């Protein structure tokens, strides 16, 4: 189990460009010689994309709540005038 998350950490450091040159070279060698490892790298990259997209969606909801507060009935009258009286 420990080896497994150590490997995940290694992939993480590679994808976030935190590996030194010699470590990076070892990483490339491993990708070329180990197909299962190469696949893990690919899936981890996809996982980051999913995390990013999901993070954006949540942030959008957070922003919408701020907007609802600012433009709601008890919101910022000056801002509401500026927006709705264009």
């Amino acid at each position, binding site marked *: 189990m420990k080896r497994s998350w150590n490997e995940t950490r290694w992939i993480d450091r590679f994808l976030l460009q935190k590996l030194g040159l010699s470590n990076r070279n070892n990483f490339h060698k491993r990708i070329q010689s180990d197909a299962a490892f190469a696949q893990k790298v690919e899936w981890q990259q996809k*996982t980051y994309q999913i995390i990013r997209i999901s*993070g*954006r969606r949540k942030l959008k909801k957070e922003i*919408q709540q701020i907007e609802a507060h600012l433009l709601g009935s008890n919101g910022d009258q000056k801002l509401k005038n500026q*927006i709705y009286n264009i």
Partner: protein
Amino acid sequence: MLGDREKAFSNLYKNCLPNICRWVQRMGGTVEDGKDIFQDSLIVYYEKVLNGQLESFTNQQAYILGIAKKLWLKKYHHMKKLVELNAMEKNISIPIDFYAQNKKQNRMIHFLETAGKRCMEILQSFYYHQTPLPEIAQRFGFSNTRSATVQKYKCLEKIRTQVKTKQMSYEEIME
């Protein structure tokens, strides 16, 4: 901005939203369109701040209006000839995957946000919001930073496996 997101976003609403709504209306959009494009602009701006992609001399209002224009063009390619961009605006990059979600990804995200809620929250805190690990440890109730680090990698493994399994099963369904 990173310390108190709510306050920072509220200030940006007051300083930038009227301008953006005016511009969107000039382009034939509605106030609702303006609000929607502004929400997305704030997300792009937030990511740029986190990733250190902003020049320190950047005029915040002008920059966010520039992001809004770029996003508008990404949504409505046909308006390219109507939108004039200055040199600064031309240089603003928008993440390639910003409007690129597909059905499979949507289902996957919905599944992960339900089945792997806590792990997704930990991973989003670290990778998306770039929250420092000591703060993650405190927020999620880990005894120390080391435990938070280990848990972060375990979560990454778990979600990676789920992404792989789910995506493969979606592909089978689609075939």
